[in-house]
């Protein structure tokens, strides 16, 4: 399941947010997009999942151009997103939120229990709180719920938007451990992060975004040692 974005342009009104980005996510990889606020990271994910319209360019998923397909159909193809700011349904219980992740799966009756068990195994906290309203969870728990819910759809490619945003350091490490674990079960991951340190440690490859352009593409471990990247995104370059 290869995801390839070719020369993507996206506009907000007259402002061009994505100015010709091409990236590739190969099967089994964790690829991360890092960059400052306004670089276009979240817009990239929203465009891939179909919430933003493509101005020009292609999004090729499993050999098919999906750039014109509505968002709800892309979800059926195995493209699953844990949205920015967690984006859970605050008025639904944890269990109902997880069920929503399977909304369109044809075989959901058979799969439901199996996948709930899988998610509860990854996030035992969610089992404890399964009957509680999503809006009453802590920030970390909401992030777990957003990821768990995305997994309920049995995704081939998982899109994660800033999973570390607003979390305590211990929780960040915890979430990233689980992301690595999920990847090991064969799920391809495209990860958007401001916490470049964690993202680069976990990812195989990375793209650095600046105001709508890709300015650098490399193996994640190389970028971790790149002086320019360290100075700009890791805050440790200037001695």
């Amino acid at each position, binding site marked *: 399941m290869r995801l390839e974005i070719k020369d993507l342009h996206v506009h907000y009104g007259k402002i061009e947010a994505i100015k010709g980005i091409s990236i590739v996510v190969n099967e089994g990889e964790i690829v991360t997009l890092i960059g400052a606020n306004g670089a276009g990271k979240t817009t990239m994910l929203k465009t891939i*999942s*179909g*919430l933003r319209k493509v101005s020009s360019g292609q999004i090729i998923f499993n050999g098919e151009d999906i750039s014109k397909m*509505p*968002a*709800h*159909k892309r*979800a*059926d193809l195995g493209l*699953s*997103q844990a*949205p920015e700011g967690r*984006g*859970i*349904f*605050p*008025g*639904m*219980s944890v*269990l*109902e939120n997880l*069920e*929503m*992740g*399977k*909304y*369109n*799966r044809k075989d*959901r*009756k058979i799969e*439901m229990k199996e996948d709930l068990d899988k998610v509860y195994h990854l996030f035992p906290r969610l089992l404890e709180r*399964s*009957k*509680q*309203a999503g809006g*009453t969870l802590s920030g970390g728990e909401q992030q777990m719920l957003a990821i768990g*819910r995305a997994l309920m*759809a049995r995704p081939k490619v998982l899109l994660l938007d800033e999973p570390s945003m607003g979390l305590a350091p211990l929780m960040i490490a915890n979430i990233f451990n689980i992301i690595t674990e999920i990847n090991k079960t064969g799920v391809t991951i495209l990860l958007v992060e401001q916490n470049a340190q964690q993202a680069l440690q976990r990812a195989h490859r990375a793209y650095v975004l600046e105001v709508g352009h890709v300015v650098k593409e490399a193996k994640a471990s190389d970028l971790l040692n790149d002086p320019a990247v360290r100075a700009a995104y890791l805050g440790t370059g200037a001695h």
Partner: protein
Amino acid sequence: MADKKHKFNLRDHAADFWDASPRWRKVSLSFLFIAICYALPFLNNPLINTPGSDFQSVLFYPVGMYVLMAIGLNIVVGKSGLLDLGYVAFFAIGAYTMAILGTKTSLNFWEILPIGMGFAMLAGVLLGTPTLRLRGDYLAIVTLGFGEIVRIVAVNTDAIGGPRGIAGIPTPPDIFNAKFTILDPKPYYWLLLTFTLLMIWVVRRMAARRPGRAWDAIRQDDDVAQLMGVNTLKYKVWAFVLGAAVAGVGGVIYASQILSIVPDQFNLNVSILILACVVFGGIGNVWGVILGAALLAFTPERIRFLSQPRILVFGVALVVMMNLRPDGVLPKKKREHFDPDWHTIEESGEGEIK
């Protein structure tokens, strides 16, 4: 509504009592409730009588009619979170269908009823498909415009009576001994009540199934609902069309009772008042909405003896109530916990809209 000592919550107690009740108690209580509703016209209680207007007529219009319309609008505003300020348009379409077909053709009430409902639903599709892509304020403005357009078109179309409207609308044929005449509002009330109960049943079933879950998701976060694979436009149009169907039925029944209609009956005030019923009663909770509509429709009639200042008194009462209970008289239960009425999707799959 003694809500000063918060924490004690009659609503939640009642809901818990209901949830814990065995089946026989639920069934018998439901029957009791329905029986009381049907017997309402025979009540002659000084507390609820309406001096200055006929109580039985008040039960049909405005009380019964507002309750039915509020249930319909609640699907749109309460369940799906779409602010519709032109709801009266669908009511008008139902009423005009009855008036035109009833006076110009030989079709009777029962034949016109599905046609009126169908026209209202068609209008729902035509208005909904392009406009439901809009969100929030924009949708409110477009629907507001639609409501006014329907009224203004009726005023300016001479073929349907223009500003004078249509008179001489036939009454429904008799059912057994129940005669539908201008003199006796009781059969109309029972007819309306029957449709209202039917609608409550339909809406409750929908809400517990996949469409209900989709509406819930759309209301809470439209974007995320799409990410979950919910075809949000389809379900929004469905909510709109169902709401339109309810108003259309209401319009047909209304026109057959009132015998003559004029366009100015279908003005913006009606849309706003129905919306007020929904919000006042407790947005999203069908029982709250029913209670809200009944109270809002009934109170101005009950205090009619105050004549001119009554609308002012009514307005003040509304403002006071919304301060005391901002979530409505009977709000939706705050769900810290999983509601057993909401079966998991596994069980509710068959309610799917194709």
